[in-house]
């Protein structure tokens, strides 16, 4: 059976690159020079309007010298980041069907907690 696996959408990659760049105090000009693209193109990439080669995508990852946990990191403390990555690793080891079940369960729990929160407010 052919089932599409859950993957994070690509738009997130651009916004994540912007966040990582700012996190490391890099200007667009700095990062563009290091990965070998024009600043205007980097700006458009961060906005999801510019497409790059595999080579450039990997060069960006290389510049940030990050692991996958860092890429997922929003504003969470370090320990939690590792846990997020571990959850994701485990998630990808599951079959597509099990992944769907997990997603449904997460949705169920989210709605349940939302309802609880509304009641307590």
């Amino acid at each position, binding site marked *: 059976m052919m089932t599409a696996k859950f*993957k994070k959408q*690509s738009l997130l990659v*651009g916004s994540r690159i912007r966040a990582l760049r700012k996190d490391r105090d890099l200007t667009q000009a700095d990062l563009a020079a290091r990965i070998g693209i024009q600043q205007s*193109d980097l700006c458009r990439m961060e906005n999801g309007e*510019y*497409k790059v080669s595999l*080579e450039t995508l990997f060069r960006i990852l290389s510049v940030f010298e990050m692991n996958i946990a860092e890429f997922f990191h929003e504003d969470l403390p370090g320990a939690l980041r590792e846990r997020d990555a571990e959850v994701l690793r485990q998630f990808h080891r599951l079959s597509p069907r099990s992944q769907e079940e997990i997603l449904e369960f997460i949705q169920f729990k989210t709605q349940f907690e939302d309802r609880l929160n509304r009641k307590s407010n």
Partner: protein
Amino acid sequence: MKSDPIANYSDLTAEGQLHVRHGDFRRAIDNFEQAVRLAHDLDDSALLVKALCNLSTARLAAGDIKEAEKGLREILMRTRDPQTIFVTSSNLASALRRQGRHDRALMYARRAMRACEGLDNPSWKATIHNLIANIYMNMNYLDDAVAEYRHALSISEKSGLGTEWPIDQIKENLGYCLLLKKRYRQGIAIILEALQIGLKNGSSRCVAECYQDLAFAYMQIKEYPQSIEHGEMALDVALKHDYKDIQKNCYYLLGETHLLMGEDDKSDKYFDRLQEWYPHLPVLKEFLRTFDVSNILNLKNPV
């Protein structure tokens, strides 16, 4: 080898040009390097300039960008010959495009376009519009790119080029551009036309790109077995002719498609092959397994 050095030069040039069209870039480089040496020995500056321009074209096609760029600006500054201006300008445009310097690339491409206005060479005219379109496509200005590709095709058709080079390449590029615009069925139809012409003309590079782009298209429309089939064919041609960029793209496409099919072992095999190219980036495989990057990639973008 003929005893007449001029005849030798002509043979080497004709053979080199054929190798370029067939995608045998390394053999083309060998031919043109010999032609450069012959022109040196003959002390013929006009032949030398032509040989250097041809060598630059072959090096560009092979991906030796910095080598290809060497000496072109000096030739361009000294010449008034429209043919030489055309070749040097278009080669510079192509080299700059591959370095992501799009504005400069466009400037040289327009200069080449002006140079060939007075020349009776429709395939050159079509080629330069194809190059301008490529630059627009790399910049992700897809509507402008489509308009330029269509213009290149109309020049080729009006001048009766039929199925000759560079029609296969132009159609292939147009088809891929339509894929980027998410007009998948239309893009696939045009790429299939390009594939037929490319196979007939023996254009290995074009054929490899067609298979690669079809693999991408079928992956996007979730026709995974078709995607795998074309990805494997693209990889075969790319390995045979040492097209490294296509090899990497194919490892990604095949890894991604197998992953989407839930075939993790096969996916791992291809992502591992891709990982071998980037040993300094251990996160690569995990990254590709986690993120859908298909919509931020342009497989024909050199940067």
